[in-house]
């Protein structure tokens, strides 16, 4: 299953599932919830951290967290 860490710049996807314990509540509150859309805006060198647009909110998370969140790509 692909995760946010696999996203390429400009790609969009729908958030599927993720282990609640490994993702901070703050991220959920900023809109990172199953069913919401996510797009990769920009990455820092080595793809880490990742600058995302989740559900209209712009935020950055580390690759480690991103790789916990499963997605389904939108074509």
């Amino acid at each position, binding site marked *: 299953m692909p995760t946010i860490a696999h996203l390429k710049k400009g790609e969009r996807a729908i958030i599927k599932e993720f282990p609640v314990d490994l993702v901070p509540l*703050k991220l959920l509150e900023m809109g990172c919830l199953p069913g919401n859309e996510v797009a990769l805006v920009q990455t820092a060198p080595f793809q880490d951290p990742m600058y995302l647009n989740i559900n209209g909110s712009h935020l950055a998370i580390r690759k480690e967290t991103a790789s916990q969140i499963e997605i389904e790509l939108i074509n």
Partner: protein
Amino acid sequence: MAKQFNVALIGNPNTGKTSVFNQLTGLNQKVGNYPGITVERKEGICKLDRGVKAHILDLPGTYSLNASSLDENVVIEVLLNKNDKDFPDVAIVVCDVENLKRNLLLFTQIKDLGIPTILAINMADRMKRKAISLQIPEMEKRLETKIALISSRKNEGFDELKELISNYKQLSTAPCVDASVIAPDYFDRLRKTFPNQDLYKLWLVITQDVNFGKLDRNAFQGVASFKTESKSNLKRLQQKETIRRYQFINETLKDTLQVDSANAKDFRSKLDRVLTHKVWGYVIFFGILLLIFQAIFDWSSYPMDFIDESFASLSEWTKNTLPKGDFTNLLAEGIISGLGGIIIFIPQIAFLFLFIAVLEESGYMSRVVFLMDRVMRRFGLSGKSVVPLVSGTACAIPAIMATRNIENWKERLITILVTPFTTCSARLPVYLIIISLVIPEERVLGIFSLQGLTLMFLYLLGFGAAILSAYLLDKVLRIKTKTFFVIEMPNYKVPMFKNVAITVIEKTKSFVLGAGKIILAISIILWVLASYGPGDFNNAEEIVRQENIGKTTSEDDIETQIASFKLENSYIGIMGKAIEPAVAPLGYDWKIGIAIVSSFAAREVFVGTLATIYSVGSEEEETIKNRMAAEVHPVSGVPRFNFASGISLLLFYAFAMQCMSTLAVVRKETNSWKWPLWQLGAMTVIAYVVALAAYQFLK
């Protein structure tokens, strides 16, 4: 007079909440701390119609009522405790029109607490450009609230907002989301156990690790039994609650908010493409850093020289004008010299806070965090450590407080421990005066001034020491934490002059007043210790004249000899001589020793102390610098501040932890004496050893 009522200003970070606060209160505001903690407390008075006044409390920015930091705890404590003197009669939730969806999450939580709530939608001036349209009446109905469309930048909509505040009694207190549907059984049990309590409030009390000391304990007795649910179960419920709230918000916005994305001009992504670029992003960041340092050293030197000279002449004028006596001496030599040593900082501090405020306000700081995270992580820090490390160049105290948004405890602790290595503005006067004494006024390659380069080297040394010790601490400290890192990337904004000006004035004022008090007190104590003494001190004149019998010493020289004899035999001289053996290997005499000891209270005291010690016993009008340059070794005749002792002093100040206020803040932020004491011990040892090595090598 009508009774004042309480208004709480609440909102996500980056919604312009502070600008709204500034617009409502003008300069009629007070900045302080919440009792016992270092969270900044801003309050002010807003004048409404018919002489009614509203007391406005600007609560710290938060994304939700699920607190993960001290700042956010404050919000919950105020909102949950009806007996708190700050408990709001009405809450204003400030939202950014471009981030309504996310901002409304907090709004729904506040509503569910049953507090009358006004929704203030800020940055309404951007709606046209972003092709956003809102159906306000429908939205008001769905959210059971009153809405004010405002623009703090254009100062629009504030009359309507004030009108709503005045009529707060007509606001609905109905909740908008029923949180209990996420786990009906669980909430049923809660309802039966606490029939008189608000359910959502109970839920918050259960899920938060907040210190509810101020809350009515009796009311919540037995709540602990509901924490039996495992932590991850509770978190799963919190996730469900968040999803439920977003469902409600999405349904509401679907019918009330339209964004014509085809028309929206995207300024942000264009800027981001450059400012967060893998190469240009870093080039621009370092360019900005260079500009900041240039401003601080070059531009502020003019007002600083002026202040230095003005105080020297003021001191001289006082001595000549007021009647001779102890009081005049105390005023001229103790107080005025001491004050001069602090006021001279104002230009630099103001410049630094100006830049930091502009970078924060514009939204650029988040990009820096994004760019630097990966690099900083190699040293056990977080991208968010960049803000403390950069603001540490102004003052370690706000810098250490700025570590609060670092989620990971280990990264946060390391940042707190290493931040005092960065060159804070209190080190500057020490550096500046010593550099001007021991580094020649020459240019390298015809452009770069040698003195400027030395100063830049000291800054790099401070950063280097911080990074290196972070790396070591990362290896040594055994703390297991999850690496959480979430940062909002806000929209770019042109900083508002009013906000920046208020920040600069407030920060400079609190620095000058805070440090000023200590410096003033120490100056007076030092002056007394230097002006009085036991035994020989009181017979100084006779002793010196006796020694000079038969010699052809001029009257002037005898006067000088008497003065220095007095100083050496004063209380401070005796104390200084006692510690001289400890500082002599570093190349210092007892006067510098005293200055170092007294500057353990705060570094900038160093210059003030020397100013006080040297001006006691000298009659001419002189700047501090000239007095220091005139000091020579009594035996060899070498200037006291020579290259070797000067470098040794610079290095000592680069590494030593000489700031009681910083130690106090570290104590508060780490909640233990262990860390500040380690910090003090380690930094002092490093400073002593490095200064010793430098002096012995260079002399």
